[in-house]
């Protein structure tokens, strides 16, 4: 089954590439607009030796890392405070949830106006995106701490620090993990969006420049490389998360009933 599924996945991807190639080959769609798989492959190998691309990757990577760190630190602090105080949660969760499901790109002009065109606004915007998601998820994770487990800590005379270590952190771990994942993902998207919209450097800027010059093959090669990195990072993260919160699966039924009633 497992190998069958693996073969199946490869088959679907190969079929997709084949359809793409054939459609362009028989001029059913214009290869100027969507390029061809072979051209993209060639562009990809060339790209690996292109210093312009490599330095763009490095600078974007650095921006993402910086945005992630700033956004996560702000988000973890804000989320912890909101998770601990019911009043603050009640007051600010609704505006934050609205902000979370609002396309953050509409605020991009503010960042560009205030921080100028370039790396700074990309980092600040990425940090902003990340912070919104991290805050909500950390706060939601804190809400997973169950009263009955807190009661155990009290009844067995845990100190404040012991309660945090033995009860609050493990309960909130799945939420914290989700929060960190959203931090990475949105720092990544935020930085790239900012670069794509108004910057000529970094990967986003490069994608725009290539697209404007109608280098479809290069554009796609770069996009697919970034996509590939994103998918790999996501898959690794999923595995890591499953490993670290494994107890949740063995008690999945119990967890489901407790969340349904609490």
């Amino acid at each position, binding site marked *: 089954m497992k190998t069958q599924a693996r073969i199946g996945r490869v088959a679907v991807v190969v079929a997709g590439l084949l359809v793409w190639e054939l459609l362009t080959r028989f001029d059913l769609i214009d290869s100027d607009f969507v390029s061809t798989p072979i051209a993209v492959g060639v562009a990809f190998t060339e790209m690996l030796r292109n210093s312009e691309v490599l330095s763009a990757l490095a600078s974007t990577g650095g921006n993402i890392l910086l945005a992630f760190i700033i956004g996560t630190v702000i988000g973890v602090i804000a989320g912890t405070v909101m998770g601990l105080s019911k009043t603050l949660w009640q007051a600010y969760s609704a505006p934050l949830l609205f902000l979370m499901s609002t396309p953050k790109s509409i605020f991009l002009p503010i960042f560009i106006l205030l921080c100028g065109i370039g790396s700074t606004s990309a980092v600040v915007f990425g940090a902003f995106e990340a912070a919104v998601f991290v805050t909500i998820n950390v706060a939601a994770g804190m809400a997973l701490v169950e009263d*009955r*487990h807190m*009661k*155990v*800590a*009290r*009844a*067995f*005379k*845990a*100190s404040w620090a*012991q309660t945090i270590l*033995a*009860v609050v952190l*493990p*309960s909130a*771990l799945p939420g914290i993990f989700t929060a960190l994942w959203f931090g990475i993902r949105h720092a990544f998207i935020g930085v790239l969006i900012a670069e794509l919209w108004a910057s000529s450097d970094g990967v986003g800027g490069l994608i725009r420049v290539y697209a404007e010059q109608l280098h479809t093959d290069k554009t796609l090669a770069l996009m697919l490389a970034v996509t590939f990195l994103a998918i790999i990072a996501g898959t690794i993260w999923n595995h890591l998360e499953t490993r670290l*919160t494994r*107890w*949740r*699966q*063995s*008690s*999945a*039924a*119990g*967890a489901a009933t407790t969340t349904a009633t609490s």
Partner: protein
Amino acid sequence: MRMSINDVSVTFTRAGSTVEALKDINLSLHEGEFVALLGPSGCGKSTLLTCLGGLMTPTKGEIVVGDSVVENPDPRRAAFVFQDYSLLPWKNILDNVGVGLRFAGVGKQERRQRSQELLEMMGLSQWGESHPGQLSGGMQQRVAVARALAMDPSILLMDEPFGALDEQTRRSLGESISTVLTQNKQTVVLVTHSLDEAIYWADRVIVMSARPGRVMAEVQIRQPRPRPLEFIAQEDFAQLRSQLFLMLNEAMGHDQQANPLEPQRA
């Protein structure tokens, strides 16, 4: 250690109105005694237990253990076995048993050894590395008892510990835990709404009435402990049962409707 409950009353304020959960409770327990608090839903028996363990402070009166007044929880004085087990799902069974010892700063080596002993006593020695989710309800409840006993408490407080289990499991679990508790000469307070459970386990059954919770009557069970399961089939048992049944009926007397207080058990 002796425990005395002096003039304890508890009132709750809910949505503006006050509810008297407990009124003028006076009781005392001898060392090694097994007392069952029996009463209809909402008679405040769980509230009383919560106060005994220091998780709640009575509105009036005091609870004295040895020669100190109970103000805060202390598992070495009185350890809880909660109704819903409340094991920490992310810790394995051995660490769950040792959690109170860990909070008390007992070293890892000693903690593990003590926890292992208790698991053996409960017949769960091969489950130490498993997680609570992998155990049945009855096994989880035995772990919760072991967790409380690990503290070597003067008093064990059990809140309807078998409420969530099926009849067969309750019986066999009852017998095995009863043996352990008797051998340890453990002082126990058990909250239950089951006549059979109260008679089978306790030296003394306290019958409580509802709204406000008061002590209605006391019945001594003279059969020596640990009691064999056959005790349930004996004539004495049947007599005690009908006696308690009538008392309980009277306790519910004027108001037989389901009591809204039950869900707010702390």
